[in-house]
């Protein structure tokens, strides 16, 4: 199974849940060493969580919803006293970091690594997905903070650390309380796929760079390359539609997003059709690109071998029996994102070809502009020959217009399919008073008993949502007796 951000989040949440459970089941209470161990691991955990929060860039027009969390995590990431919290200046050796917390930190770091190549979130769907990703990461931090607080107890030497952890718990509470259905989004589909992988993901991972390379090079682009890309687009879109139907039928995808995704996929499919056929009167010289050809053939073969039987798509029940449909939907969402990149390269290639002279050829008999129907063109038409396509020839402009429609249609389909990345309903399990297990994730619940930290919000600049800033609250010390205004 392909490792995805989603599977790593599953693991991280399960580990955090286990940590909470173990600590609450210890009969003798937590020892000084264990409490110190938790604290010693916090700088790494904070650093890893910060990296996840920063991994997906968000357009500046949206407020940074997690600014307060970032602030406290930055403070912890550089807080050296957490490693030896007992007595400042003493000879006590730095505490050995709690392994379970380090394991969580390592996996959060891996998630940040996987997300680091993602483009900035520009659409509403991507913004919602990025907020959901933040909530998932911060929920883990919240759970570990709650566990650490419990471990610190009322030991005097941990007073500063206690205030710090209370700050973390308070600031992360809101994010951790986000229902799991609101957290799911396309970033959970991001996967670490090797080009050696023989799965559908591997085939797509090989197909994307080979196709973009063939289309992106003015020397390598050929009619064959453009048609192959379009043909593969049709097949990928049809595959996505088939798997979506199966996923919707078993309740893995809710009706609303499925009903919106279907027509979007149909629209994209229709838009790519004319680009596979190409007008019979237009051609572009060139030998096929071997790498693109091989990658295209492999992609079609993998889809045929796994998802088709007797010249038909596998029925939804069979797909559901043979595959982890949630994982397969993730693969197809990744495939559609790859197609989005190919659609850009495809449009750019045609744009270059149509606007530059001497590359595209047209049947002499199909030249429509009178200014270009000279003696040479007429002679070529008589012998059913070809001539370089004149600038502004409608056949070329129509091809470019079709490529633009395919690009737009693909973008709409990608967004609609991304919206299907929502968590299915799953049993809820209650843990400690502060936390519950819902849909494979930790969710904070109930009123917490941590003192509220008050912050001042002011807008020194003139009206505008961009200018809101939050005043920092001093960390690591007793709370002020009254709210700061």
């Amino acid at each position, binding site marked *: 199974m392909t490792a995805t951000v989603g599977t790593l989040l599953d693991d991280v949440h399960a580990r955090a849940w286990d940590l909470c459970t173990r600590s609450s089941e210890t009969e003798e209470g937590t020892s000084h060493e264990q409490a110190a161990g938790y604290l010693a691991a916090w700088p790494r955990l904070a650093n890893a969580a910060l990296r996840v929060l920063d991994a997906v860039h968000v357009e500046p027009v949206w407020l940074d919803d997690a600014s307060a969390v970032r602030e406290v995590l930055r403070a912890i990431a550089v807080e050296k006293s957490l490693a030896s919290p007992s007595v400042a200046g003493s000879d006590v050796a730095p505490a050995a970091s709690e392994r379970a917390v380090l394991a969580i930190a390592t996996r959060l770091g891996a998630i940040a690594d996987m997300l680091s190549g993602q483009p900035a979130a520009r659409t509403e769907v991507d913004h919602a997905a990025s907020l959901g990703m933040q909530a998932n990461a911060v929920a883990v931090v919240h759970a570990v903070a709650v566990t650490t607080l419990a471990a610190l107890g009322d030991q005097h030497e941990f007073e500063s650390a206690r205030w710090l952890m209370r700050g973390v718990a308070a600031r992360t509470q809101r994010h951790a309380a986000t229902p799991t259905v609101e957290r799911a989004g396309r970033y959970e589909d991001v996967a670490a796929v090797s080009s050696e992988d023989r799965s559908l993901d591997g085939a797509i991972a090989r197909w994307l760079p080979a196709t973009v390379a063939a289309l992106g090079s003015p020397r390598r682009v050929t009619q064959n390359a453009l048609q192959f890309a379009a043909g593969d687009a049709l097949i990928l879109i*049809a595959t996505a539609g088939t798997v979506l139907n199966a996923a919707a039928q078993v309740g893995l995808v809710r009706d609303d997003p499925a009903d919106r995704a279907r027509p979007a996929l149909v629209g994209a499919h229709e838009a790519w059709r004319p680009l596979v056929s190409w007008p019979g009167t237009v051609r572009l010289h060139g030998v096929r690109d071997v790498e693109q050809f091989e990658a295209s053939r492999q992609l079609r073969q993998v889809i045929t071998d796994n998802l088709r039987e007797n010249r038909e798509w596998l029925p939804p029940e069979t797909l559901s029996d043979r595959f982890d449909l949630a994982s397969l939907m993730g693969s197809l969402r990744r495939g559609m994102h790859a197609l989005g990149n190919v659609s850009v390269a495809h449009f750019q290639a045609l744009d270059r070809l149509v606007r530059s002279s001497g590359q595209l050829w047209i049947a002499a008999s199909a030249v429509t502009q009178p200014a270009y129907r000279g003696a040479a063109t007429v002679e070529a038409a008589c012998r059913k020959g070809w001539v370089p396509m004149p600038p502004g020839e409608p056949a070329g402009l129509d091809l470019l217009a079709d490529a633009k429609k395919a690009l737009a249609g693909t973008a709409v389909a990608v967004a609609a399919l991304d919206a299907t990345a929502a968590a299915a309903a799953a049993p809820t399990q209650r843990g400690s008073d502060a936390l519950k297990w819902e849909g494979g994730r930790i969710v904070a619940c109930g009123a917490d008993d941590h003192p509220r930290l008050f912050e001042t919000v002011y807008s020194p600049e003139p009206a505008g949502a961009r200018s809101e800033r939050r005043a920092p609250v001093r960390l690591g010390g007793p709370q002020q007796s009254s709210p700061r205004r």
Partner: protein
Amino acid sequence: MNGSLELARALGHVRNAVVAFVAADDPSGESLFLAGDCLDLEGLFAELGVEPELVDPGVNARASLDSASEALAAARPVVPLAMWARLQAVRARATR
């Protein structure tokens, strides 16, 4: 008989087959994969430097593939075996 002309006609028929497969209203999706196979075949023609001849579209994709086969058969001495084999495989798949 001009082998080059027959190759050009065969490519024209294969191109018509692609158009017909793509235009087909086929919920099974098989026509999409057949179109892909035809594009593979067009790639072989491109490697030989064949320029397509504009030919009338067949009644359907299978008819166009049959016409392509007849044209290649008429130019047998100049037809690479791989091209012939690939065309026959596509015809067989389209007929099943």
